[in-house]
């Protein structure tokens, strides 16, 4: 399953992901073949490639754009997210499942991107980042004359 994707993960992460999947498969049916996120409170990321761009999407419900920091450099996308813990004293929690806290995640990009044209949109808790490919990284059609 993993092999068919060009992987954005280090060998260590891959091994860990595989172990998680093995255990998940052992303990119960794995959920639709998705890789589990690496760390509990870290939002899961989907990433795909179009002809012109690399797309990164992550679900960050409740996040304001001020709590989000994005940067692209050296072929890597860095996402920093800080969800302050809104817990107040004297309030009883009956369920506490929504993630809080700060985290950062670095995604190695599969090709060169044009850092000055990167766009990010945050709608209904879904962050979509469009990283346009650098001109020389785009597939070029060769005219046969």
């Amino acid at each position: 399953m993993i092999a068919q994707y060009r992987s954005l993960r280090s060998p260590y992460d891959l091994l860990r992901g595989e172990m998680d999947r093995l255990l998940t498969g052992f303990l119960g049916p794995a959920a639709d073949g998705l890789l589990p996120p690496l760390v509990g409170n870290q939002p899961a990321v989907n990433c795909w490639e179009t002809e012109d761009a690399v797309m990164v999407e992550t679900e960050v419900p409740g996040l304001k754009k001020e709590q989000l920091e994005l940067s692209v450099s050296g072929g890597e996308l860095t996402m920093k997210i800080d969800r302050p813990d809104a817990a107040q004293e004297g309030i009883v929690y009956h369920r506490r499942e929504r993630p809080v806290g700060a985290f950062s995640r670095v995604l190695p990009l599969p090709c060169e991107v044009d850092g000055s044209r990167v766009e990010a949109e945050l709608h209904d808790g879904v962050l979509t980042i469009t990283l346009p490919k650098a001109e020389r990284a785009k597939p070029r059609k060769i005219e046969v004359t």
Partner: protein
Amino acid sequence: MTSENITKTAADVTTAEHTRNGRHYRPNVDILEKDDELLLLADVPGAKSDSIDVRFEDGELEIRAAVPPRWENQQRHLLREYGVGNYYRTFQISETIDAAKISAEYADGVLTLHLPKAEAVKPRKIQVNVK
């Protein structure tokens, strides 16, 4: 009030859940108890406010949110860590909630439900009339 009489996760309840068509996801929730209300926060990223359906019937709170696919299946994913689909979850709510006053708001992928506590039923003294 203990947590036992407020909530049950969808997995505990043998309701219509298994008869629903298609895959649905269980939203993460926080449930806070304040002096005058229970506050329920549910993460339903990707849902639009008009596609969220909240029902309260016979002490059962049902949250449903339709989420259309955001990308095509054929896409070549470099990383695929989560799926996109409808949300569904039910809770058993204690009868001390004033169902008529439940209100909901939605912002940034988070559904907020206010479940006001009902005024405690006051003890009534019954006058016994002597004939």
